């Protein structure tokens, strides 16, 4: 096709222009190195933070999620030769970093201060308040693939089919030539034209509601203190003295409650809306142009931070050659997603490659510099933990959790090195 060739040429030429424009923008570091090795061996080129996240890997991850969501049923799966039993689980598959200077890895507490490769970074060090300097600053993002629980318990917990494989860096924005080009970044958001209509803007309300509903049903939003102390030792233990309100006692019997009536269906509807409106990041709205947050303090702008992480996750997943965020749950598309994304294929028996992270199966959780509770993708990031006095940090790290509906014992276990199993 002639038209296709022209588009390809145009795209390539833009890529070249972008590459050269990076070269122009690059600020020359004080010390220059010929290669990465010498940069790494020179102690003056490295800055080790006091408490890297990896030192507190266990304490900074909300492990309770695993046991909270793990569930097995006796429904037979469709797999062959072992049909398997339909089950649900969640596991942490990696860490998403957002940093204000290139090649800074808060996860490891490691920063390469030298600039052995020209990253096209316009970051300038300056005063504390930033001012002019911050306007030229673009945050960088990394995705570190570390399926911690799979690495620790792969053998003993084989039925979970945990992610395995090496620690990998599938996405570093420093090496992504499209990262800082608004126009080229559009490829990650195919719904750009539709987004600019008022109706779609309003539909983000619906997506927001759906996200919050799903979050409430997963138990992420409602926080009530559990009863404490010793329990009465009678035959029937009545906890009425806790003075809680059980509206369900009335609603449950009459069947009036919408949620009670439809039970899991409510979550299903909410998730269908969320997945169909994948271009809207729940209550965070959507980013029309560009995937990065320009300027500003990532720590102070908590809300922007969450949105930014979601956007980066999408971008990273779409960009990476190894799509680490596979489709792992059953869902359907309705509306605009149809025709723009491939029809979801059943993933009961093995993960399926998919171009976007599925909103309903992705959970983000703050891990550094503060540890926060898990959030549904697109759920508002405002939480008590994010409003506390925050330690100064050049970056933030979030744990990426991924849900899975699978047929246990019949499932082809995922892993970056075992993709042929699918």
């Amino acid at each position, binding site marked *: 096709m002639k038209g296709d060739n022209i588009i390809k040429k145009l795209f390539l030429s833009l890529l070249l222009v972008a590459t050269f424009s990076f070269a122009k923008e690059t600020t020359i570091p004080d010390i220059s190195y010929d290669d990465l090795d010498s940069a790494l061996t020179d102690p003056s080129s490295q800055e080790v933070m006091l408490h890297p996240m990896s030192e507190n890997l266990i304490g900074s991850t909300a492990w309770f999620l695993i046991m909270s969501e793990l569930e097995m049923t006796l429904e037979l799966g469709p797999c062959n030769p072992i049909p398997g039993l339909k089950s649900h689980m969640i596991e942490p598959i990696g860490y998403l970093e957002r940093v204000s200077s290139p090649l800074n890895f808060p996860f490891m507490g490691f920063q390469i201060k030298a600039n052995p490769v020209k990253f096209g970074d316009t970051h300038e060090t300056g005063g504390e308040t930033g001012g002019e300097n911050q306007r030229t600053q673009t945050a960088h993002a990394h995705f570190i693939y570390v399926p911690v629980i799979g690495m620790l318990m792969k053998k003993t917990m084989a039925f979970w089919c945990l992610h395995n494989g090496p620690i990998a860096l599938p996405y570093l924005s420093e090496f992504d030539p499209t990262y800082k080009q608004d126009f080229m970044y559009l490829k990650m958001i195919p719904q750009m034209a539709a987004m600019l209509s008022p109706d779609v803007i309003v*539909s983000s309300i619906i997506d927001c509601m759906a996200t*919050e509903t799903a979050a*409430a049903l997963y*138990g992420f939003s409602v926080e009530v203190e*559990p*009863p404490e102390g010793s329990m009465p030792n009678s035959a029937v233990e009545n*906890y009425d003295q806790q003075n809680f309100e059980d509206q369900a006692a009335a609603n*449950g019997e009459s069947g009036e409650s919408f*949620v009670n009536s439809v039970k899991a*269906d409510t979550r299903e509807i909410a998730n269908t809306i969320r997945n169909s409106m994948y271009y809207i990041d729940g209550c965070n709205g959507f980013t029309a142009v560009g995937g990065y947050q320009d300027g500003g303090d990532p720590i102070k702008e908590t809300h922007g931070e969450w949105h930014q992480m979601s956007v980066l996750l999408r971008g990273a997943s779409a960009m990476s050659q190894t799509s680490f965020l596979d489709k792992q749950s059953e869902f359907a598309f309705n509306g605009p997603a149809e025709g723009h994304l491939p029809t979801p294929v059943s993933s009961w028996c093995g993960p399926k490659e998919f171009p976007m992270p599925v909103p309903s199966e992705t959970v983000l959780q703050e891990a550094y510099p503060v540890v926060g509770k898990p959030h549904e993708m697109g759920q508002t990031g405002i939480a008590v933990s994010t409003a506390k006095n925050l330690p100064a940090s050049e970056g933030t790290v979030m744990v990426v959790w991924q849900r899975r509906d699978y047929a246990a014992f019949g499932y082809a276990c995922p892993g970056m090195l075992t993709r042929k199993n699918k």
Partner: protein
Amino acid sequence: MKKIILILVIPFILFGFDSEDYKEFATNPLTSENQVKIKEEFGYINGIKNTNEGINKEIIKELNKKIKGMSLNEAIEYINIFYKDTEFLTKKELIDLVKLSYKMQYEALTKSHMFLLYFFTREVPKNSMANILLGVSALQENGLNIESKQYLTGVPDNIQEYMSNWKTFVYDYPFKYQNNIVRNFHLKFDPRFFRVYEIQEAPAMALAFCQSAIPTPKTCKIKYLIRGDTSLFDFFDKISKIEPKYKKYVNILKANGIYLPKKEVKNNENKK
């Protein structure tokens, strides 16, 4: 988009969705104590928040300002004034969607699910639990909104064999029993309930009210807890002496309770 509307409109029809449904919160939605709670959690009630830069910054800013913290009636009024019918979405469809969204969120945050939680060990006979699950399905078939989750004390080392035994056990029975057990069999391994409610000896059974679809000690309130092996009938019988409204449950179980047939009986049937 039309299909989204369809999927959203079906529940309207199924669950008698009309304007009267909103009386409860249409005039004063989420503005009671709940609102305070929700605001603490989310920072806001509804509307959109974003940090977008670019072309539609102004539109979004305006929307943020207008819709943030609106009641349902205000939001509808706003849509009526500022939005026109398009091919993509008519004004009425948009309002219906927003209504359903409000309703879903309202109920997800305020209403709770009734759960029967069963705590057991590997040593507990499968019959005991299966009979309870059959009882729960009898309650469900009689229109009661109750769900069940079963908590095992830890993951067995030989989980595949354990689950395989369960499968063999259940699928040996006639279809009506299989179906009712499988529908309510949701095996979980969450150790937190055991710790919070000091359940050191299993089995134990609890009636809980949860604000989430996945029970957790934080989102659930256990109202009644009986330790030791007991049938579902006995469980509700004892509870009904404290709260007479549960007499209904007892009567249903008495009239419709299904119990697993003994294996010998089934074998004899096969021989015949």
